[in-house]
């Protein structure tokens, strides 16, 4: 009985601490559905959170811009919004986009994709 209870508690803990999915970490604006985020990862490098997103373009349109949103404790934004950065990516190509947090206070991030004209 005791073992069964401990197993349940562990299961609950795992359930609560699960990391958000790529979809949950991405905000899309405009028609960016053809841009797929294949991989999203982060690492602490020299005291600053560094994020890497691998994106792939499935359409011939390549007018895509991106930016990272850096979050501190309790999900509060660190600094102002970043500038949108245009990226040129041809059909079928995949590319790594890397973002470095503006301050050591950043502990989490989100990625935003947008179309530009």
């Amino acid at each position, binding site marked *: 009985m005791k073992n069964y209870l401990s197993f349940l508690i562990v299961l609950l803990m795992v359930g609560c601490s699960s990391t958000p999915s790529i979809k949950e970490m991405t905000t899309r604006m405009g028609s960016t559905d053809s841009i797929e985020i294949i991989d999203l990862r982060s690492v602490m490098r020299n005291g*600053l959170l560094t994020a890497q997103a691998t994106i792939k373009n499935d359409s011939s349109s390549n007018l895509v811009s991106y930016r990272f949103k850096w979050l501190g404790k309790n999900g509060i934004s660190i600094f102002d919004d970043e500038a*949108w950065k245009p990226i040129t990516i041809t059909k079928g190509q995949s590319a790594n986009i890397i973002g470095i947090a503006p301050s050591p206070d950043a502990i989490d991030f989100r990625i935003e994709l947008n179309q530009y004209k």
Partner: protein
Amino acid sequence: MKLNHQKTSTYIFSVLAALSLAACSGPQVRYGDAKGVETISVDYGSTDLQSIAEAMARSLLQSKVISGSKDAPTVTVADVKNKTSEYIDTRVITDKIRTQLLKSGQVRFAVNINEMQSQVDELKRQNQSGLYKNSTVSKTGNMQGAKYRIEGSISSIIKQNKNIKDVFYIFNLNLINNESGLIEWADEKEIRKTATR
């Protein structure tokens, strides 16, 4: 027939009235997104300024020189040379980099050559005017020298034919140790812009 003629004249009158109103009204003003991508021309623009400053500031913050030092190191901004054929206010780039670095709390900045005169004027005013209480006066001889200086350059390669104009910018920034003269960190940012007819 008469009714039709009347209808046509009313229509023409309305169109003319609308046209004259449109001609009289001024331009439509809207606030835009200051962080948005600007693609009006291939010339150096706000998106270039923002991406250069952001990339350089973040890269410098992550360097071992800054992240590895116990206290926030003192830095000053030297010259960023504009080697392009365009007019580019390089001071805006370095100011933007400086603001981002200061906001991070990891770096302290000493006044640069351009700001030195106002610093000297303020010290003179406090120390030589005889107007201030002695205990509140900022003393001379206590200014801090910067351990490092930031300097760099921006260059461009422009190629064009009848239909295409291609501009390639390269921004280079170095962090130099003032005492040893060693370049402790360097990074570059490349930007390519193409305009087609």
